[in-house]
């Protein structure tokens, strides 16, 4: 099966960079915070009204939490980016995979963003904007130095290869 996957999503001669494992922590934490209230609510209600359907709900909520958590753990290492001479490649996904190729000359703007949690864990997200809103080129989970390096690198390469519309 490996060769099939590689056909589209792993072009030859490309060295993929992975993102920081801290991203897993941030995403897990965010997910846990999101689910904390529903889980807590489900547990409390089950404790007071221990009916069979309440247990089903509790199990569903917990199952959902664990399932997504597993997906997050598996997904993050699969996010990869590669700088080629003329374009940046970003790929992600296991079940639903996608790859995007952004020519440097097409970049209009590079955003570096870091939310409060990201800052706490020391990661940042680099987003490339082209003239197309469909260009979904986001590299999450970069350590600040790498984010800054990537941004400057992209900016200077974009400058050098600037193309009109």
């Amino acid at each position, binding site marked *: 099966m490996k060769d099939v996957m590689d056909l589209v999503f792993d072009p030859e001669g490309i060295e993929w960079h992975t993102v920081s494992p801290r991203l897993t922590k941030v995403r897990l934490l965010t997910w846990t915070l999101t689910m904390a209230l529903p889980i807590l609510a489900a547990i409390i209600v089950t404790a007071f009204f221990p009916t069979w359907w309440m247990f089903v709900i509790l199990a569903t909520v917990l199952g959902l939490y664990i399932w997504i958590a597993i997906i997050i753990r598996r997904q993050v290492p699969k996010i990869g980016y590669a700088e080629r001479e003329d374009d940046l490649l970003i790929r992600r996904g296991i079940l639903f995979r996608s790859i995007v190729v952004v020519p440097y000359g097409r970049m209009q703007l590079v955003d570096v963003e870091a939310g409060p949690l990201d800052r706490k864990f020391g990661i940042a997200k680099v987003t490339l904007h082209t003239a197309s*809103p469909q260009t979904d080129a986001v590299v999450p989970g970069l350590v600040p130095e790498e984010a800054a390096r990537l941004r400057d690198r992209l900016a200077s390469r974009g400058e050098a290869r600037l193309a009109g519309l």
Partner: protein
Amino acid sequence: MTVSTSDDSQFPAASPYPVLPAHEPAGEFAGQNKQARGTDNKDPDGLTWHKLHRLTPFVRGWIVIVAIAIAALQTNPTEIYSEGVESKDLLILLGIAIVVGLGVIFFGWLSWRRMSYAYDYESVYMKRGILFRQERKVRLDRIQTIDIVRPVIARILGLAELTVQSAAGGTSNVSIGFLKDEDADKLRAELLARASGAVTAERDEASAHAGAAGMAGGVNALSTQGGVMDQTGGRIVENQRVDQGERVLFAVPPKRIILGALLSGGTIATVILVAVAIGSLIGGYGGVTAGLLPALLAFVPMTWNRFVGEYGFTGAISADGIRVRHGLLETRAKTIPPGRVQAVQLRQSLLWRKPGWWRVDVNVAGQAIKTDGNSVSLEAVLLPVGTHTEAIDALWLVLPDLGTDNPIELLDHALNGVGPAGGFTVSPRSARWLDWFSYTRNGFVSTEHALIIRTGWLIKRVVVVPHARIQSIGAQQGPWQRKLRVATFTTHSTVGNIRPLIPHQSEEAVRELLVAQAARAREARVHAGPEQWLERVSENYPQLQDLAGMGAASAVPAPEEGDSKLDLRGAGTTHTSNEPTNEPTE
């Protein structure tokens, strides 16, 4: 190329702009323009950070404030009255109101404190945000347009917001607002002048040194130059040169517009709904009829709006592009500069197959799409209803060279063909489980200049994307696709109705496309010279020769290779060079 950062503290070495001192003096935005500079905040880079109007957060957040107010008012007053009001309750309510009010004001003030903008001779900078801090920089030479926006509340307060649109579109726009009306106008003029190169650091310096009244004089000079920019680049004058050097190429007969609108999906739905409604009424189920009425009310205006919007559709050619006019009650005119056309789509719905009609849409770069209902689609229509020949003509108008020896044959295959004839690569047989009816039609062919995508079974679609206009490319694959060993290939186009994607192609084909298309796009970008669009079109249309001659120097602005200042001046410069046309318009 523009760069923006958030949370600069994380990137001390890399941040191009230093963080502001923690307690910035609340810059009085009183004089509000250059005179007020002294009171604004100057950072070590020489950037002067200006503050926005103090009411900005409230103008932005007025909906929230109104919602809170309404919620507060709706605390069921009748209940209170009927049970008798106790002064203690009222006091508590008042207290809550005051606390909430103070909170809103405090947060407004906090966010206002963080908002400021600056500009130099290269870029505009904007920063905002309390928790999620954002700094954004847009290079002046990347600016497409600067709009002045006045929402209702702002209009009442005499405020305006500048929207600086760079080519990246929606998310990367910088909004500078809110400012007082006149300051917004001045700032716009100033930025346009600087972007055009009419005002440079040296010239500004010179005017600043020009004597005691230097500063004021400089400001005046700037606004004048801004005014000139307005006349050449802005929208203001566009309406005044409507009739100069135009040739009407096609006018869609009203009868066809009506028929086209009637033969749409909305009409089919209406007819079915009416039939069901009448049937259930006869059958004695009046309730069903009543339930269907709202749906009917939704479909009828849809067809009607289409008719009203597209009525009297004419396409004319002028030196700066294709001028499209339409509308029964409200006439709209729009120029589509072919050099900025990013993608063209020919579309035929099921009911149009019999008369053989096609609709031609385009994606145009840097043109804000209005999102108020029906105008969305109309903004980018090149031909609402046309015959096969007219549709191909319309395509030729914007893309004169498809890069193939026999474009007519190729387009025939694209419009009505199935299978690999005409050089098309279609989905493999395994894709039939995903597209039972259209897998032999879903395909593409890549010519020297463009990627031609053919999709659809009930609704036929053909999308043409010039290689040189491809922004980025990508591929997706879901679990089913993976089982069937197919993947979907997409090219990303600018804001518009067209989304060029090729569904369910074999993995080999997609891989090949990813490699080849990236290379073709790169090649095309490098070699894309001046468009000379009019020259090429006039080969097809001899009657346009004179137009081409007079617009020859400029033809259509094709912003290429970093010379993006053309973006801004584009149509205007073209116009100034083609004044001497007095030929009557058809």
